């Protein structure tokens, strides 16, 4: 049984359809990347899995359980945590309070404040600062830490490199092996294709709300990816 499975997942923003029957599966312990151009539906897919967009229950299964129609606050308790696009830290909370809030859903597991500060040592000295006072990279670390504090089985990361300097992106991606070492399954949305191919066991490419390519990075030629990415 796959940890996560979507079958025929469709998603709408009002009358606008953003996903057209997406089928994907992720096994426990895998790292999977979703690539695709702007507006391909990558973020929408993560939002639908996390419950921010409702779908028919059977369209999303987590550990065999239909979760498509559940509220996000229920889904996180089952073990799916999203690092949202644009970080979305709570501006009136300190760094540590943001992390603590992530832990409030009550799941037990390896991730505690201490573990987060060991994963991202830069945050330890800034724990009492307002989250808005941090640099973009540090804010992204807080956003990842906040999601990890929920001790998810499946971590969803939406464009964690967006707007950051390459050296900062490298620091953030350097944390992923440590996260995976805890047995956490990772699903990442990434615009930077080479970054995605470098970290993932498997890659899905989305184009206009449909899966156009799927496979292990080694099996995929640049040409096939380019075709799946742009459709030309």
């Amino acid at each position, binding site marked *: 049984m796959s940890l996560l499975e979507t079958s025929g997942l469709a998603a709408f923003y009002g009358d606008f359809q953003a996903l057209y029957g997406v089928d994907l599966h992720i096994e426990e312990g895998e790292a999977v990347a979703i690539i695709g151009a702007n507006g391909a539906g990558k973020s929408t897919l993560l939002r639908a899995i*996390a*419950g*921010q967009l409702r779908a028919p229950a059977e369209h999303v299964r987590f550990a065999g359980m239909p979760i498509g129609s559940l*509220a*996000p*606050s229920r889904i*996180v*308790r089952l073990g799916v*945590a*999203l690092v*949202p696009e644009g970080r*979305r830290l*709570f*501006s*009136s*909370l300190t760094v540590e*309070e943001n992390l*603590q*809030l*992530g832990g*409030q*859903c*009550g799941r037990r597991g390896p991730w505690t404040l201490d573990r987060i500060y060991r994963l991202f040592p830069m945050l330890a000295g800034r724990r009492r600062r307002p989250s808005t006072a941090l640099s973009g990279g540090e804010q992204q670390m807080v956003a990842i830490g*906040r*999601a990890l504090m*929920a001790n998810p089985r499946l971590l969803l990361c939406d464009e964690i490199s967006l707007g950051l300097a390459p050296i900062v992106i490298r620091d953030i991606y350097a944390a992923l092996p440590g996260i995976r070492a805890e047995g956490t399954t990772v699903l990442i949305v990434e615009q930077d294709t080479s970054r995605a191919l470098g970290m993932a066991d498997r890659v899905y490419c989305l184009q206009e709300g449909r899966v156009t390519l799927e496979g292990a990075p080694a099996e995929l030629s640049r040409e096939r990816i380019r075709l799946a990415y742009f459709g030309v």
Partner: protein
Amino acid sequence: MAWTNIILQGALLGGLYALFAAGLSLMFGVMRLVNIAHGDLIVLAAYCALMVVQATGVHPLLSLVAVVPLMFALGYALQRGLLNFTLGHEILPPLLVTFGLSVIIQNALLEGFSADSRRLQAGALETASLRLGDQLAIGWLPAIVFLAAAVIIALLEVLLYRTPLGRAFRATSDDADTAQLYGVGIRHVFALATALALAVASVAGVLLAIRTNFDPSIGPARLLYAFEAVIIGGLGSLWGTLAGGVILGVAQSVGGALDPGWDILAGHLAFLLVLVIRPRGLFPKLVD
């Protein structure tokens, strides 16, 4: 000495206004809901206390043991069963619904208790005072009201800044959609905010009813004082709300000393003056 006395009495009265305002401020802070029925809910709490006192004969302050949990439960149910459905991107629905609620509460109280003005009898506490000098004395009751306001505001601060629930309140206030991603059930959190707001309002209602006469129509004026205290203090700051209440109380007290007809007017003028000088209030915390 006379002026010292007037200012002191006004400041103590400000405690009551801060109690009116704290619940209003909490609800607005957590869910941006302006509760037009807040004043009427304060009056409703006063009538609940009246019924408890009449039924059991206990001291009015002791009636809080029953009234506070009752109003807490009512607040939870009200938010969960009605007000949650008014929240969304539009600002008008909650205003309209709580306005309707205000009308309903006033008329229901009128139906149940008539328009006669009532009072909670607190015996010796009403007149007992503490002499501070030759011509200066403070009543125990106003002192208790002020202390209650300070203690309740301190407790709310602890709740907001030192507890998981307070964190959830503030996170929800910042970004409700994202708070849900981390397990915060916002409908429950909103309901708890309203429950707490009404618990505080019930303390305000009982102290009001010991201090002065009340009847079913006085709610809207209490709402107005509460608004003024919140705005003077600055949105989002509970200690600012206490300061706002004190400024309002002192202005009314000084106005009333100059001419007995000027007390309420003086309070409103002080409010306008603060709006002109510091449009965002004295200690604003909220950014939007």
